[in-house]
């Protein structure tokens, strides 16, 4: 990223990005509870479309990937692929206790314990399952991160965590800003 302040077109693009976060929900072996709560966000009671959030089927159209579940061994490679399919700039929300650490499934023989062992995560949401309010809050937190990233010129400023996991055996794919 250049040192000069971003021009009007970049600022316009950033404004648009903040106003229209499209999400894709990926079930990486969750118990459905997180999924139905995430879907409940789209429904009349919570209606996230008023913030411009749309759920998209194709990861190619998405900006934010919401991953539920502890990532079973079979889903790990699929999760990585879905993540690769999302065009830049992309953000990942690990949803629920399972997505954050494996939750009650931590240490079982067919799970990889949390999303960040497979792909880099930007926002973690606690709860089993998190209420829809918390999911909306997480998306807002994600948007704040986007804003922060934009002013700081990329994700590098908070990349410490990702590097640490990569030392501990996590993958080391750097996210281009």
């Amino acid at each position, binding site marked *: 990223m250049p040192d000069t302040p971003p021009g009007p077109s970049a600022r316009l693009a950033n404004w648009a990005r903040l106003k229209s976060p499209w999400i894709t929900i990926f*079930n990486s072996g969750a118990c*459905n509870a997180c*999924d139905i709560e995430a879907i409940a966000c789209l429904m*009349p009671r919570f209606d996230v479309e008023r913030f411009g959030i749309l759920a998209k089927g194709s*990861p190619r159209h998405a900006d934010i990937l919401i991953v539920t579940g502890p990532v079973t061994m079979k889903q790990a490679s699929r999760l990585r692929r*879905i993540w690769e399919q999302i065009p830049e700039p992309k953000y990942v929300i690990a949803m629920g206790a399972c997505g954050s650490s494996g939750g009650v499934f931590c240490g079982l023989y067919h799970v990889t314990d949390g999303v960040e062992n497979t792909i880099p995560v930007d926002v973690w949401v606690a709860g089993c399952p998190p209420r829809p309010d918390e999911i909306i809050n997480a998306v807002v937190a994600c948007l704040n991160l986007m804003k922060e990233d934009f002013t700081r010129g990329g994700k590098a400023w908070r990349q410490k965590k990702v590097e640490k996991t990569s030392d501990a055996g996590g993958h080391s794919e750097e996210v281009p800003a």
Partner: protein
Amino acid sequence: MPEILLPIGPQHPALKEPVNFKIVVDGETIVRLDLDISYNHRGIEKAAEQRDFVRVVPLLARVCGICSHSHTTAFVKGIEEAMQLEVPARAQYIRTIVAELERMHSHLLWLGVAAHEIGFNTLFMWTWRDREIIQDMLEETTGNRVIYGVNEVGGVRCDLTLDLIRASFEHLQKLEDRITQYVGMVKNDETLHMRFSGVGKLSKADALKYGTVGPTARASGVDYDIRKDDSYLAYDEMPWKVVTDTHGDVFGRTLVRIGEMQESLTIVRFCLENLPEGPIAVKAPKTAPPAEVLSRYEAPRGELVHFIRTNNTDRVERLDIRTPTLANWTAVAVSLVNQNIADIPVIVAAIDPCLSCTSRITLLNGRNKKTSLMTWDELRSYSGEYYRRKRCA
């Protein structure tokens, strides 16, 4: 058009379990298919052997978030049988109330998903809006919207107060109005009829042969309902009837589910009106004597079975869970052949799992009617190479 291998799954815009169908289609017709349901395997049965009863209950609540009460009830019911524990009547009634609320919420969810599968988003939105009424009731009673954690070995954790009961009646009244509205909608809507009638037909003989359970079987005229046949909780103390239908198709399954919601309303009302006084739990022993129990439970999607073997310790020796979806799977595979691909979501949704659709890696080899599929290794190396290339470019 040549035969195309169409992988459906494991990721889906709508929800629920990731499932993969490798479907070979000729034009729009399904020629043959293979199912892959392993994406969600977490190894819960193994974990259940390694944890004591107190810790297994919350674990089992997370087998499935939609029927979390079913799994825990089936398990504690089995363990209580092995321990020969007498559970207080009030606890049984509260379990019944939560079970029927869960059934209604699951059926409403299903109706919405089925509507979504055919692109009828208005019905989808409306059913999920009304599902929130049940979620409110559950949250007021148990403190959580989806995984309630009501059960423990020996009883339940939370009691119903008078205020809650009074509020529940109002909620139920509202819900009844809405459900009546859906009955009208389902019976009269033209597009629903076009997409549901005659799709995924299963005769009574086939339904028995392939071992279907729950609404899928009942829509084909098989009147098996564990709540009647092998009565548990408080079901034998109240008047209600098993809903069956003779259509045998997706439309019949819709009617059965809607009828069951109305029955559930009756059951919940009865339970709230006749809630016995007394304690809500008894103290359970730490260990269970050696026993072999087959605990059957009518979950919203059908008969759920927990086979439990105990061995004088505080853990189970073996917990074998047979979910209703697994039982219905064979029938799905059979009824999908020769159907239109547009009907896959509807047929599969009709047994109430959800299939998913985004696996997008296939290569078709059109000329010689041969299908080919990239293996995951090829795929992985391909994607790695591709992204390296892209970054350089």
